[in-house]
């Protein structure tokens, strides 16, 4: 039997690691990897709250599934953008994509 | 209750009492017995695999008008052992440019993705690993691991051909996964559960789902062959173009794992064919005597395996674009249409008399199949008629 707080701490750790990945990695694909970690952290919370709360209320699981869908959509569009950018600028390093620099 | 009616339970009780007699705490003993069960199941699967090597070689030979292995043992039945010895004593090469860790994990993952399928196989009544309530989806998940192993092998080999082969294989697996999932949903809809035990039991109580969805079993078989990467969909190997595909750099027992995984995979899909559409272990007296059921199950799985081989050694390889077009433009829409038809007929007719329900299901499948063929015919007719006039210009 695992108390709820364990899941929450795990999710907090995962979220922070993902956040670090998003903020620190150079490669655009690696940034997306970080986003995936963050989404998973959220999902752990959702499912844990479902399990510990009212079992008949499926909101937690349904939200998790919708997060799946959103993640899939995000990855599909994100990666196609990365590939499109790569074709144009021949790089996926986020720092080098600085056309918007002053 | 004796050994013949419920062997697993008898064995389990015996082992528990044995371990208990050694003074082991019950949870520990339970864990130990479970682990033992897992090991035994995997061993059985792998021993069967050795046998499959012989069958495969024998059947190919017959299809090609040869005799096949016939020196070692009666009918060459012990031929696999020299084969294995050869594989084991071969030099185990890891290429210089390879990504070593990934390169070595890939074959294990490949074989492992097949073996974990055995966890959910209901081999006979009361003989199964676990009764997972999402087993149908679990099969797809295991397939996902297989896809992963292919791309890992292809990439880590640091070889163009390997990577090309892996890309092809992954493209095929991801595309054909869709009709396959759709067809796994057919039994799921009919039973209202994704558990393989429930699906088998429903066929024991009713009719084999082949009679409810003949078209579904056909689509499932086609997409299973594509998932397995067997001819006519063996673009991943394509000797003439990419030498040997993703496992070009593998040798010795590492290659052996891929090989064993492929054979076992084919056999396991034969088993899934049996479970989803041909009643699983269902047969005369199978319910009372599970070992008889296991025999029926293996027989049916072997039949499925034989059909896969039959197709493999009869139909030549097709082009990769044709293969993907075939899936996206034909198989996927058809499987969705079938899914809709099945669901509709099921909901409408489930309260009707049983024979009427079966007849409606069967006819609607045949009708859909006929309609598809007619539509294809009307399209190809136009194409055929268009060709001579195009030649004039």
């Amino acid at each position: 039997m695992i108390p709820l707080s364990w899941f929450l701490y795990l999710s907090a750790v995962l979220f922070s690691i993902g956040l670090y990945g998003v903020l620190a990695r150079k490669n655009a694909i690696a940034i997306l990897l970080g986003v995936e970690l963050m989404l998973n952290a959220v999902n752990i919370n959702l499912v844990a709250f479902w399990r510990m709360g009212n079992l008949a209320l499926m909101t937690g699981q349904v939200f998790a599934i919708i997060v799946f869908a959103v993640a899939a959509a995000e990855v599909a569009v994100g990666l196609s953008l990365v590939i499109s950018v790569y074709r144009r600028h021949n790089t996926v390093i986020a720092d080098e994509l600085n056309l918007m620099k002053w | 209750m004796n050994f013949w009616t419920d062997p697993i339970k008898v064995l389990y009780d015996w082992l528990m009492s044995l371990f208990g007699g050694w003074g082991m705490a019950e949870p520990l003993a339970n864990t130990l017995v479970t682990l033992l069960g897992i090991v035994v199941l995997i061993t059985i699967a792998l021993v069967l695999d050795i046998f499959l090597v012989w069958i495969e070689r024998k059947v190919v030979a017959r299809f090609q008008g040869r005799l096949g292995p016939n020196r070692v043992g009666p009918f060459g039945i012990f031929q696999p052992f020299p084969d294995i010895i050869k594989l084991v004593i071969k030099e185990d090469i890891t290429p210089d440019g390879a990504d070593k860790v990934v390169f070595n994990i890939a074959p294990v993952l490949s074989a492992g993705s097949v073996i974990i399928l055995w966890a959910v196989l209901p081999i006979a009544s009361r003989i199964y690993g676990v009764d997972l309530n999402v087993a149908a989806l679990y099969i797809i998940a295991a397939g996902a691991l297989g896809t992963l192993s292919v791309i890992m092998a292809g990439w880590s080999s640091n070889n163009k051909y390997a990577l090309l082969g892996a890309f092809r294989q992954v493209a095929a697996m991801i595309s054909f996964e869709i009709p396959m999932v759709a067809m796994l949903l057919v039994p799921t809809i009919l039973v209202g559960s994704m558990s393989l035990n429930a699906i088998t039991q429903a066929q024991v109580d009713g009719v084999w789902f082949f009679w409810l969805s003949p078209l579904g079993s056909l689509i499932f078989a086609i997409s299973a062959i594509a998932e397995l990467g067997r001819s006519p969909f063996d673009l991943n190997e394509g000797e003439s173009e990419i030498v040997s595909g993703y496992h070009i750099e593998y040798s010795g027992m590492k290659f052996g794992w891929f090989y064993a995984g492929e054979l076992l995979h084919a056999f396991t899909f034969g088993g899934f064919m049996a479970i989803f559409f041909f009643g699983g272990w269902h047969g005369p007296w199978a319910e009372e005597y599970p070992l008889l059921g296991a025999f029926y199950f293996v027989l049916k799985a072997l039949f499925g395996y034989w059909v896969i081989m039959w197709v493999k050694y009869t139909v030549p390889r097709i082009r990769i674009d044709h293969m993907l077009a075939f899936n996206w433009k034909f198989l996927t829409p058809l499987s969705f249409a079938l899914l809709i038809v099945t669901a509709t007929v099921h909901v409408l007719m489930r309260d009707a008399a049983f024979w009427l329900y079966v007849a409606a299901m069967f006819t609607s499948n045949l009708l859909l199949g006929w309609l598809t063929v007619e539509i294809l015919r009307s399209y190809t007719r136009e194409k055929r008629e268009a060709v001579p006039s195009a030649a004039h210009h």
Partner: protein
Amino acid sequence: MATETIVWLLPLPPLLAFFLIVLFTNKSKALSHSIGVGAALLSFVGSMVVFFRALSVEHFGEGEHIFASSIPWLPTGDTFLRVGVQIDPLSAVVLFFVAWTILMIFLYSVGYHNFGQPKGDHDHPGLPPHGATVTDAHGHKHTVLSVEPMYSRFFAFLGLFAAGMYTLVISDNLLTLFVGWEIMGLCSYLLIGFWYAKPSARNAAIKAFMTTRVGDVFMLLGLAYLYSATGTLSYREIFYNQEVLHHLAETSSHVFGLSAAGLIALLLFIGTIGKSAQWPLHIWLPDAMEGPTPVSAMIHAATMVSAGVYMVIRIFPLLTADWHGHDLTTAMSVVAFIGTFTAIFAATIAVAQNDIKKVLAYSTISQLGFMISALGMGAYIAAAFHLVTHAFFKALLFLGSGSVIHGMEHGVLHTGNHHVDPQDMWNMGGLRKKMPITFWTFLIGGFALSGFPLVTAGFWSKDEILADAFAHGHWAILITLSTAALLTAFYTMRQITLTFLGEPRTKEAEHAHETPWTMTLPLAVLAVFALGYGWVGIPEHFPGLGGLLPNWFHHFVGATLLEHPEAVEFSPIPLGISLLVALGGLTLGWLVYKDVKAGQPDPLQKPLGVLYPFLQNKWYFDEFYAFFVIKPMTWISEEFSYKWMDRQLIDGILHTVAQTALWIGSSLRNYFDKPIINELLGDKLGAYWTFQPAGRALSKAQTGRVQSYLIGAVAVFLLVAAALYLFIF
């Protein structure tokens, strides 16, 4: 299967057929018509099952004794918008005729579009087929009818049309009724313009679509009003709820002194005026004859125009919400006036038409006018009865006329003289010998339309309308409708005589040919109903016949209403009138036209004088609209909207704004930026040297790196979150 389930499924097969044909089978003609006819057959079987199950329910229609089922559809906040289906006696009888006629029209279309004939020599998609040359075994060349190039497309559209009509009939609320209504609007556009390469067909399609749109806008307004007044659109909750009806009847709408019920009913009725081609929005229907004939039958008999009347019958409780039995309310008077006027008005035009289909078109308008008029004076059952019988005999007549045209086209191909119009009745004559099945069925349909006594369905239903008008003392309506009925009998006999009787007036008519079984079988089936359907509604006290069959229709459909309507008392006077007008009109028609020879003008031309061109040109209504509506509209859009409003007013304002902005900008630059910032602050005071480093330093923050911005964003978020956490919670 549960009846409710079947009802839900009724519109599905044709809809699926539409998608299947459009998406997959359009390459194969045989497959497409199999799917189309098969779908129609499925829906037909389902409808019959529903209908006969409805018959076997005792007290069908009263209270809960109906087939109804509904599901929540869309969550709208706390409540759900529910959609559902229901079959009560009214929708059951409508379903009956809809299913029969649709199936017959599908079957007929196979023959009409020449399935099985060779491809045409010069046929183009978008034009009617012109015929193909074939060489027989002896090497002779023949010109035969050729198959329609867009055969599959026709069945697809017809399927969608049928799906729309089924949706409308089974609907249990005005919203899904409106959905079906609009699907049919779209399909009528697509099918009237089916031969889109013909400019006339294109124009007719646009005209039909635009004209019905006028009505639909008002109908939508009515729906919106009804929804805002009651919060629901369900029949059961509005029309079968005395409280709601009473409330609506008591509320004033502040428009022309109408009650809310009256105004809603009138707004909805305007939708019917458009859809059922009532005066003054009748103009689209005659032009709609440009479509293939099965379409004419579909639109003008089986589905679309009936839908309009059906809707008024549906909203009858609303229309009569504040009616107490005698004096008509304002809303009812409007309805009655429009119906009656349309009936006589269209009948006069039909007298002077030469095109076989145009006659039927105006007769349709006129007959719909009968029904509307009946509803306006509160004769609920009579209107429903006439709706059903009319659907049968008018479908029969349209299909029959299509058969005639088909036979004439055969003759035209035979002689090769393409200047002969195969639709002009003056080119026909004597076809009874060439096309006997068509003749006899057409005769039955024509007699039913004229109300030939006792044996035809049209007699019983029309008689009931006249009897109602008589019993309630609506003399003006009675006289007008009787005259219209006389004219109806007259022009029907004129049509039959010109087409079938006498001697052939052209070579083409001599070579006309009976049509294939796919066309004659539907005629025969419909003829059975055109004769027999009247027997279910014989008034109880009718001399001789009344006792034989109880007035089944009256009791069955009457159960739809909360208060069952009473049958009118039998009186010999309206019976005499209808006998007189029917027989008189028929005889007159025969006498006038029996000796017409080729090349001779219409015998009516002389006695009618100036009236004749007036009638032939449809009371100049098209010209009237062209002058008083279309021209002013064009002027408004061209001169007022475009040239003045758009170009001068709106563009002018925009240009002024732009000029002002330019002026402000240049003033700022010249009078503030240059002298004060640049010269005073910059040059004279030397602040230039502080601005530049500050700007430089700040610009460093603008790295263009998305992650640096993100770090900033996260930091700010954390600060804000911390502040919120610490100070608020």
